[in-house]
């Protein structure tokens, strides 16, 4: 029989997280992490988290974690979002690069990079895309050419999230200048204040610099910052992309918290809502619950030695379309106030901010069109033409 009861240890862990969050989560919301002031507030929050040893609970203690299992991670997330705690400015590091380092990094790299990542001392940006290579990463052209014990990088990255204010960046570069497509790429880590790096922030929908372009002009990076083997960057990036679509980046608790807010909003607005809104609110509630159930199942499988496969693509489609539907529904309950932002429009602004954020969901981490191709080809076995 399935064991669907939390253990006493789970309950104790949940109580510990809940109490700590109740005592420490900032009482008023931080500014968005896409502006300098908000970024610094969020970085400060990471340090507060670190003081409670909550930086990345699943990591081994030696790297700044608590070594808890995935069920406890889910419990942590439930309590974290239940307490309305801030978004994680460190997410590129802790959710994407961190797991990649665990799998492909040298002992020295792990010791060097993981603890400050968990502590919020070093915030990471990512450097995948280039102007000609968005969903199609095989089109990467920025070169990192070996010169003695350094790589010399020239070219340009774009859509680098967190780059306007972060400390470090990981990215995929062409280390073999003769290579084409998926071959000859390598994953390299570099400080954003390296000489020759120029960062041009890109204003996103809400006007804040959510991304940046990064220009490289003879940027010298020591070879020990190569992650994994030279020329094997594609495989490593695929693993990272798997983490991005996988379990960690979008934990169900986040959507459950939004569904809960949507129910509360609906209760207030139901007199002026159209009937279909009620069914959409309930669908949001159910879909967020379904996503949690699916994640508990995946976590159980991974804990028993399983892996996430192409179903990660199903996850990514499901949460991104749920998130958009949920915020679209929230906006639809606000009437003429829905367009307002700024002071005095906090409730409205939250739904509009959330809606704008949700519009990126079906685009980043591989567009939903790409994910549907993956499901069709790898899960269903339909032909690639």
């Amino acid at each position, binding site marked *: 029989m399935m064991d669907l009861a939390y253990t006493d240890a789970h*309950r104790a862990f949940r109580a510990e997280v809940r109490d700590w969050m109740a005592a420490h989560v900032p009482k008023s919301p931080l500014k968005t992490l896409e502006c300098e002031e908000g970024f610094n507030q969020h970085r400060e929050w990471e340090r507060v988290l670190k003081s409670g040893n909550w930086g990345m609970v699943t990591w081994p203690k030696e790297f700044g974690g608590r070594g808890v299992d995935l069920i406890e991670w889910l419990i942590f997330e439930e309590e974290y979002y*239940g307490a309305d705690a801030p978004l994680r400015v460190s997410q590129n590091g802790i959710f994407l690069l961190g797991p990649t380092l665990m799998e492909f990094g040298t002992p020295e790299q792990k010791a060097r990079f993981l603890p400050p990542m968990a502590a919020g001392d070093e915030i990471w940006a990512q450097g995948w895309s280039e102007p000609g290579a968005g969903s199609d990463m095989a089109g990467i052209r920025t070169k990192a050419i070996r010169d003695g014990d350094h790589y010399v990088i020239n070219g340009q990255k774009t859509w680098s999230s967190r780059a306007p204010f972060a400390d470090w960046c990981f990215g995929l570069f062409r280390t073999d200048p003769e290579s084409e497509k998926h071959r000859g790429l390598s994953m390299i880590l570099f400080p954003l204040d390296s000489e020759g790096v120029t960062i041009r922030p890109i204003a996103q929908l809400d006007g804040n610099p959510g991304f940046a372009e990064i220009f490289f002009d003879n940027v010298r990076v020591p070879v020990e910052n190569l992650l994994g083997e030279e020329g094997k960057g594609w495989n490593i990036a695929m693993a990272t992309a798997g983490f991005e679509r996988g379990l960690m980046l979008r934990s169900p608790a986040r959507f459950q918290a939004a569904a809960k807010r949507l129910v509360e909003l609906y209760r207030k607005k139901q007199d002026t809502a159209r009937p279909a809104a009620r069914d959409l609110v309930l669908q949001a509630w159910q879909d967020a619950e*379904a996503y949690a159930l699916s994640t508990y199942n995946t976590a159980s499988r991974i804990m028993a030695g399983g892996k996430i496969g192409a179903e990660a693509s199903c996850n990514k489609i499901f949460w991104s379309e749920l998130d958009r539907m949920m915020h679209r529904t929230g906006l639809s309950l606000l009437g003429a106030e829905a367009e307002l932002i700024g002071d005095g429009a906090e409730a409205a602004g939250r739904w509009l901010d959330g809606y704008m954020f949700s519009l990126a969901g079906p685009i980043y981490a591989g567009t939903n069109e790409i994910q549907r191709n993956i499901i069709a080809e790898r899960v269903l076995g*339909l032909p690639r033409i």
Partner: protein
Amino acid sequence: MDFRFSQDALDLADGARSFLDGANPPERLRSEDGRDSLWPQLAALGLLGVLAPESAGGLGLHDDSFVLIAEAAGRVCLPEPLVALAAISVPAVLATYPDEVGGLVRGDHVSPPVHPLAPYVHDADKADAFIIAGPDALYGVPSSKARLTPVKSIDPNRNLFRVEADLTDDLKVGGAGLCAVMAVRGATYTAAQLLGLTDAMIQMATDYAKEREQFGQPIGGFQAIKHHLASAQVKLEFARPVVYRAAASLDVDSIARQQVHAAHAKIAANEAARFASEVAIQVHGAMGYTFEVDLHYFMKRAWALETIWGDTAHHSMIINQAVIDGGLDIGPGTTFDAA
């Protein structure tokens, strides 16, 4: 906390699936004869008694062992009402006249469930008795005291009758609580069968899309076809854990929680099946619109199961009462019982 099936449950389901795949190929659906010819084998394999105690000749297992079997029965569009009898009638008899369970498990007695949400009973003309949910009590009605009116289903493998009876006190076998249990079990296991039907329809359409060529290539190479099928697959993947949780919940949760879980399961499975059926016929083109391929049997079964044991409107009201009116919070404590 381990939200996976046990290896035993998986092995049992594998066995059932192999048997059903072999014994109920699509060809069998095309004949209207012998719609109940697999009864002896289903009984002999113990499938009728999965949820019955060993003392009654059953396997003494739990619902999380039977839900995959129900899914497998849906996947082959099994004509025999295995799921209704093994998952609804057996527990109802176990709760009222446990001594009678042995007969059901051996297949000697057939006592299908009847409920206001499922008033039409398949193969009612072959039943010995009926277990009927009345307004506030459960009744056991021998077939001699039941009135059967044949009605016609769009599903040619559903040999339906409207079943009515005078629900007199002498036929009462249990209280309203057992009727509620029956409704929850009906919804959960109908949802499980819908998962199987959805899976089968996606598979049929995928196979067809790999073979059928238009404009010089298999139509499965066109992105429009790929994306239709991928969207159906996403709906299936996210209906599954909801149905499995509803089944697991039958063994451990309060009836109020079971009702919410079963409602969610039925709504999600209804949606997945409806969506997959419309995608599957679209992918098949005109061929899917005919008796030339077997898709129509699966679509028609799905349409039928979508509406019985509570349609989406019914279950949506249950969720509404719990969530909007009742203030049931999402998250820990709702996802799984004890947070």
